[in-house]
């Protein structure tokens, strides 16, 4: 009862010579996804490379867990592959991708909070190499500022964090956000404003 049975999803043969190589790099996301539907791993790889940094950053921001963001993003891509046959060509691929990523990252955020009493999950800052170069110092300051912003974002209530990320990072319209967050656009506008005000206030206080 309640038995779980294996479910096979073997990719169909594809990846012809015509689909591989640099020719794929100039194709749109939607064209690539059409090839992915046919089982093309070469097209899939081009999509992953194209969106890798943004999806990982998105997962980090929504989940608040930078250390786990890469693994969450990998799961997002595996889910995209698994569901490739059901992808609707009329859908904008980026919208679909971030809907999947949002679901995974939000889920991780909740799971992570449940484990918070067990694990201390504060990520360690990467090595900061001492340097006297003005450019390097500027780069480090910028990185430090973004680190502080990431932490401030992580500490926002979920509803504010999700709203401000979808609005300003993913640049969704309020109508699109209504679908994802299941809240009225007036509520979402208010959340975005509150989030920005709180981020600005906190970063202002912390500014050296």
């Amino acid at each position: 009862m309640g038995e779980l049975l294996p479910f096979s999803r073997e990719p169909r043969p594809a990846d012809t010579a015509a689909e591989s190589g640099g020719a794929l790099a100039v194709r749109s996301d939607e064209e690539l996804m059409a090839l992915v539907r046919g089982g093309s791993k070469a097209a899939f790889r081009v999509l992953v490379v194209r969106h890798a940094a943004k999806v990982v950053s998105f997962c980090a921001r929504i989940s608040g867990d930078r250390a786990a963001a890469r693994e969450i993003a990998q799961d997002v891509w595996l889910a995209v592959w698994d569901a490739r046959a059901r992808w609707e060509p009329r859908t904008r691929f980026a919208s679909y991708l971030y809907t999947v990523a949002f679901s995974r990252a939000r889920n991780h955020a909740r799971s992570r909070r449940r484990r918070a009493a067990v694990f201390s999950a504060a990520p360690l800052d990467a090595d900061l190499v001492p340097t006297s170069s003005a450019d390097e110092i500027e780069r480090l300051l910028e990185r430090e500022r973004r680190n502080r912003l990431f932490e401030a974002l992580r500490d926002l209530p979920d509803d504010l964090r999700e709203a401000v990320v979808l609005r300003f990072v993913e640049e969704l319209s309020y109508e699109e956000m209504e679908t994802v967050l299941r809240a009225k656009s007036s509520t979402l506008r208010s959340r975005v404003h509150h989030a920005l005000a709180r981020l600005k206030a906190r970063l202002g206080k912390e500014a050296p």
Partner: protein
Amino acid sequence: MTSPCPAHDTLVSLIDGELAETRARAVRAHVESCARCRAALGELEALVADLRAPVPDALGQSPEAFADEVLARLASRPARSSERRSALLGRAAPFLAAAACVALAVGVGWRATSRRAADAEFSARGAASLSAPDDDPRRTLVRFGRVRDGVFEPILDGAHVRADDILVGEVGATEGAQRYLLAFVVDAAGERHWLYPAWEVGAPRPVASALPRTASPRVLGTMVRLEDPAPGPAQLVAIVLRHAESVDFVEQAPASELTRERLAARYPDALISVTRIVVEVR
């Protein structure tokens, strides 16, 4: 004479692109002539620019290396037994060990007290598809209940369910071809909480649960307690299929796709059961 300084909210609306063009022009004109507002707007713009920048150290490798890792995981998946996939997919907390004890304790008692109600409910569900073949999933009888004080209480339309209730499914008329069940709660926040399949970290791949073949109603062997459901109106959805469908669609679809009508369109040969409930959180 300069115009009065706009409220901070107005500056936020400006960079949010939410001001009407006339108003936006007026605010920009003011900002040009006001050092304080110029600084405030500059801070907001810098904040948004930082928000859009990559999170430091998040990727930690080249995009190409990342893509190769994804493809390597794809290639190695048949052997992945310890993958933590379920932790990222599932929202329901499986209540397996305790559930087994509860099932033993109450399995006979509740059925005796609720059989009449069960028969009535099952008849109502089955009536619409009596002309279908015997192994048609739409003939399946399925309902849910909660176990309180050792007694099974059917969950009927409009029922109030406590967040800490132990939930369990019951099925009947499943003789013939194998059928599979996807059952989940969509809470007021649109979150999905899985009942069947219920899984936890390290569990097998999440696909629909294979139903036991039985003519008379039988309670399923797995009970579930929802985890952190949002309070308020929710839907308890059951989909009975001919195939072991993955949970992926339900997990990834917008909540608007999970209505009875939309699900019936997506799974035309399946039984779709939707029960409206209200989740109470103490």
